[in-house]
């Protein structure tokens, strides 16, 4: 497993909002060690039995939390992220969708300068099945096992985890890096973490059209990754010039096509699936080969 485990102490920024409260409850039910919520002006109250603080600094001082899941509204996310980083939080999972991308860029600059890991924004978060859940992934779909997953998509991750779980391929950790063009951690850092993680046998990379992150991941895979990688790219039939749901999912100027990404990944030695069903088959094959070798 990477990034988080059952001992990770987590706070929730925006814990008393509608979405924050609902997911705080779900995360607690999953077993996540939620040690505090943060909502300015609501300090001293509780939410689902968890103490609420006015500031992240106070929450960190009182609880020793090292990770934060952020559910604040889009225009407050930069402030919330900077607050977490300044208070010593080491891992920020930014769920919020619709953040102005220039705000994200400023937050990325801030967290990079402080060596804080940022996941998201516009992401479902992280799950280490059976241990902890930081975000909004539906815990019931994921099972413990040896497949490490990295994905730019939310529900597509659930879909693929579902078919993998059904086929007996549980997951070490799944990380949704988010669908925005500018974001925190990307493929290379996470591929590298999974490569070093003894609990991960096979890595599943779920990409989509837009940008060149998958092409760069391919280069990284060919140079640095020893474990088998199964890749799937969504948007193989997407028309050019149209934004396909995610702010980052657009083929522009002939760049960012699924074809280009699949080609690069194949050339890097990854197994490239065209449907979720094929992902399962390829993981089965890869794990079979691992057993034989």
């Amino acid at each position, binding site marked *: 497993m990477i990034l988080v485990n059952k001992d990770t102490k987590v706070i929730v920024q925006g814990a008393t909002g509608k979405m924050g409260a609902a997911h705080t409850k779900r995360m607690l039910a999953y077993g996540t060690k939620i040690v505090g919520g943060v909502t300015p002006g609501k300090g001293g109250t509780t939410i689902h039995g968890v103490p609420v603080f006015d500031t992240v600094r106070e929450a960190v001082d009182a609880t020793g939390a090292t990770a934060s899941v952020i559910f604040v509204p889009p225009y407050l996310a930069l402030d919330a992220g900077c607050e977490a980083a300044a208070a010593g939080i080491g891992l920020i999972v930014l769920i919020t969708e619709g*953040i102005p*991308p220039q705000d994200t*860029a400023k937050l990325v600059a801030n967290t990079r300068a402080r060596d804080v890991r940022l996941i998201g924004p516009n992401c479902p978060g992280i799950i280490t099945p059976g241990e902890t859940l930081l975000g909004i992934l539906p815990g019931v779909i994921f099972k413990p096992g040896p497949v490490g997953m990295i994905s730019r*998509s*939310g529900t597509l991750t659930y879909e693929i985890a579902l078919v993998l779980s059904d086929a007996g391929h549980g997951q070490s950790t799944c990380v949704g890096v988010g669908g925005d063009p500018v974001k925190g951690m990307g493929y290379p850092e996470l591929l590298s973490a999974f490569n070093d993680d003894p609990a991960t046998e096979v890595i599943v990379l779920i990409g989509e*059209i837009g940008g060149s992150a998958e092409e760069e991941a391919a280069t990284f895979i060919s140079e640095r990754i020893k474990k088998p990688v199964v890749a799937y790219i969504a948007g193989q039939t997407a028309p050019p010039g149209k934004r396909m749901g995610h702010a980052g999912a657009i083929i522009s100027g002939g760049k960012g096509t699924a074809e280009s990404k699949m080609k690069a990944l194949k050339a890097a030695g990854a197994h490239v699936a065209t449907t979720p069903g094929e992902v399962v088959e390829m993981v089965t094959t890869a794990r079979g080969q691992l057993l034989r070798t």
Partner: protein
Amino acid sequence: MNLYEYEAKSIFSQFGINIPPGMRVTKPEELRKVFFGYPLTLKCQVLSGGRGKAGGIKFARDLKEGEALAKQLLEMTIGGSRTESLLVEPKVAIARELYLSVTLDREQGCPIFIGSAEGGIEIESSANVVTVPIPYPYQPYVARDLAKRMGLSGNLLSKVADLATRLYNCFEKMDLDLAEVNPLVVTEGEEVVALDGKIIANDDSLGRQPYFKGWQSKHLVDLSDRECRSRLMGLNLVELDGNIGILCNGAGLTMATMDMVKKFGGRPATFLDVGGGSDQEKTLFALEIVAENPNVDVILLNILGGITACDDVAGALVNFMKKSPESRLVVRLRGNNQEIAEKMLAESGLKLIPDLEPAVKEAIEKSRTLAGARN
């Protein structure tokens, strides 16, 4: 949100960027009010690209020629986009053309300057392009680095760097996705002027940019009516040419469903991401706008509940089926509160399919039957 050239230039001007004098014209006879001399440049105001090649820019030597050209240009449609108005400017004596823009670089995760000592070009296909990442907080030396790398020197370096700093300020203060000057011209009098300008405002930032308040609806003209109405509801609809309407929650899952429909031999008619956490009302709107498309024979609804509660979706389906027969529907629904949803839908006779691949195949099968019945 794409802006028209005249809107972009007005914003540039507010940030101290030199633009040519200009007048927006919606009728040929308005040319008589032009306050600067001939020859004139008349430019179609459209949101699509490729205006020059399509003949959307003309020069007039006198009023008579101008009125004739204006009449002709005002009727043009370029790249599917109708001419909204004309921007009329005096013809500028150009000594040199450059390219300059600011945009966000997704790979580096920061804004970048893009510059070229060659202007009026397709920047994607040009060889002479330099890019400079822009650290935050901004300092003007970044613009000088850019101008230097563009190969400029002397006064021109300073003038272009100054303009680049203003362009960045505009980009940051107005929350833009793109601020582009192409071409940036050096006049024979050594003035540096934005001869053409393009701005894309960031959609997610419109709520904090009072300047753009109320602008959105009139700038969605390159979308179909249904795409446009969806956008205003906060939904992402892309219309395609098939007969299977696809609705899913989440962009990646919608794309994957579309890819599977195509792969197994079906033809997608819509890509509609209803988003995470969408409520009953929004889901109903989504079902109706897909059903409204006359090409749609089958609606494939694929919801994997993460944030989305299945019972909310079921509620929308129950309402939808009051007006629309369930026979066109193929529903894959799985996730939170799935049992409640199943119960709600059991009465309607709508069968839920728990797995995606069978659902896709069912939708394709049904689309063939219904398309056959229609022909």
